[in-house]
């Protein structure tokens, strides 16, 4: 399928479901697709503002960074994915906007500079207060709620990307002529086997 066709298809599908203008949707879809294929041109977000965009990119990579096995969130097009999802759900945008404001204000209060200009240590200091819901102080409730959702959305975007699916090792959605079950070493690790009886065990 040509990229142009993909774009047309996605634009049509999105338009059917929501009410966004055709050019906006087509642009978001095109960029999301380009990002998937690598070599994305500079992306102009639709939902995120010019000031929010670098914060989103930076935060997404802090959540899922590049490592030996795969790239980071921005390499996988997660910010573009987030822009698309935000646009699609006008009823669920406030938490993101408010959260980014909270993060910016918190970082400024502490270090007198914007989040993206903070050092790695400074950024981490803020994240450490909001990344662990069970340990977080009540004063950071707003930050914790935002970061928990942001982390989940980063996970959604990263692990469903081509890069993420390959990394996590999802091996299905293929056609098999027979189902042999799970591999022997995995069963052995769990202490189970296909020699087990599948009959119901009656007690009492």
């Amino acid at each position, binding site marked *: 399928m040509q990229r142009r066709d993909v774009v047309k298809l996605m634009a049509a599908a*999105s338009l059917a479901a929501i009410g966004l203008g055709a050019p906006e949707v087509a642009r*978001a879809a095109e960029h999301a697709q380009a990002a998937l294929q690598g070599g994305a041109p500079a992306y102009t977000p639709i939902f995120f503002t010019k000031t929010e965009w670098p914060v989103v990119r930076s935060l997404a990579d802090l959540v899922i*960074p590049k490592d030996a096995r795969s790239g980071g969130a921005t390499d996988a097009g997660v910010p573009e994915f987030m822009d698309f999802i935000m646009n699609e759900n006008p009823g669920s945008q406030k938490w993101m906007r408010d959260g980014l404001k909270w993060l910016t204000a918190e970082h400024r209060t502490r270090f007198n500079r914007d989040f993206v200009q903070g050092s790695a240590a400074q950024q981490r200091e803020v994240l450490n207060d909001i990344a662990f819901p*069970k340990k977080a102080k009540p004063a950071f409730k707003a930050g914790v709620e935002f970061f928990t959702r942001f982390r989940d959305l980063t996970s959604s975007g990263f*692990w469903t990307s081509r890069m993420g*699916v390959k990394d996590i090792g999802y091996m*299905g959605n293929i056609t098999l002529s027979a189902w042999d079950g*799970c591999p022997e070493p995995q069963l052995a690790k769990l*202490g189970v086997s296909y020699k087990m009886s599948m009959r119901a065990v009656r007690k009492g």
Partner: protein
Amino acid sequence: MHTQPKRLEYDVVIVGSGAGGGMAAHVLTQAGANVLMLEAGGWWDNTKDSQMMKMPYDSPRRGASTPERPFGEFDACVGGWQLPGEPYTKAPGTKFDWWRGRMLGGRTNHWGRISLRFGPDDFRRKSIDGLGDDWPVTYNEVAPYYDQVDKLIGIFGSVEKLPNHPDGIFQPAPRPRCHELVVKQAADRLGVWCIPSRLSIITKPTNGRAPCHYCAQCNRGCMTNSNFTSGNVLLIPATKTGRLTVVTNAMAREVTVDAKGNATGVSYVDKASGKDLHVKGRVVVLAASACESARIMLNSKSSRFPQGIGNSSGVVGKYLTDTTGTDVGGFIPKLTNHMQHNCDGVGGGHIYMPWWVNNKKLNFPRGYHIEVWGGLGQPSYGFMGGIENYPNFSGYGAGLKEDYRRFWGATVGFSGRGEMIPNADSYCEIDTAQKDKWGIPVLKFHWKWSDYETNQVKHMQETFRTLIAEMGGEVWGAMPGKDKGYGISNGGSIIHELGTVRMGNDPRTSALNAHQQAWDCKNLFVADGGPFVSQADKNPTWTILALAWRTADYITQQRKAGAL
């Protein structure tokens, strides 16, 4: 596919293309009847329209839901809990959700293909424990139809000879997945019966359909027709007889009658034009779903039927039940750091637990079955959400990335699906104050669970927690308290509404006789979940199919005898 009827009059008009309507149409067209079917949604053909082989990155939405497809953009079923222009209302304090499919095949596009026969006891519960009512048919009368359904549609399972869980004519069941064997081990130790699932997915070539290829995406619609939907397994083949006309986007308004009180056909709204149209039929079969069929009957008022057609007993809309439900999941440490492999299998669990306890020992009268979830399914929107609940998780960064890898597949969960006893506080009626966008009066729901159901759900919660502990796991979250009904689902939310047009042996206390024929109107039949006298600890679809076949045979016989 047709948008208008082709004839002036049909032998049979069927409303609804789901399990019941599909089976009735299949059997009646085979028997030579000219059938017209009205479907409120659009055409759907899995072989052409399915999104079965999509990977999440094929869409910028990554499988997230859309207004048209609340269960995800790749899901087959067009419909939802709320449909634009088609409201329903609820009495104050009522928690009830109503899922409606709007497409060829109806809600058979939206289910787990769990295809359980009701057992002998399920047809005579009142005789056993004094609650509810007995059915006017017995297991032995329905069994030959279950056999035919097994052979026509295809089902896998294992012969177990367990009491009240009748075996069928099974194709080989697929081996359990790795985590399912861990569940099986725990269930065996606790004496909870755990056996291969019984799903209407074929593992052998069946009537021209190819066997399952194990991509796990049954809910997206099977491009090879290896699972059951009414559209692809019953209706599209039935169109090949040349005797089935399906009119899509047709919203039934009422059953029309003549001066003698016989049904003459169905009036409906053509959704595309908004025009009111009518189709004539010698026989009318309602199979629009339990609540929608009740709505049509209650709205079909005439001087002959002031309470709605077939409702001289006043029971239409009453005795509404749904399956009880609750879910518990847990983290199973031994399932972390799995070896990468294809864990897809069929779409649905490969094992389940049929009801195994004698209710005489318990503080609730009826049982439930257990469905199992877990494994390494295709990543989709929402993947590993709630990672912060796993022990010693890393919050963010390289450590978190590693957490996702090692915790993926380490959650196992259980869903209980149990039998509710009909009660006087749970019913639907016409809301005289509200109409849908075509001016058709809508349903108002009333709902209340009794202690029978909440005590049963408490038992589910305790069982699931014990199973998770037995696997060495840690349960996600504390057990909901009595004030929350121990986590019982909303009425309707398991999508097993039954009983609103119940059958019986007495015209004063039932709307239909044992052939699902209206006592008050001999050429009106109901062939969905409406006629059910009781739920069971089993999903209703296989019984809807068997009874629809039985009713279609009766209609054929009566037509031949000149009685209709």
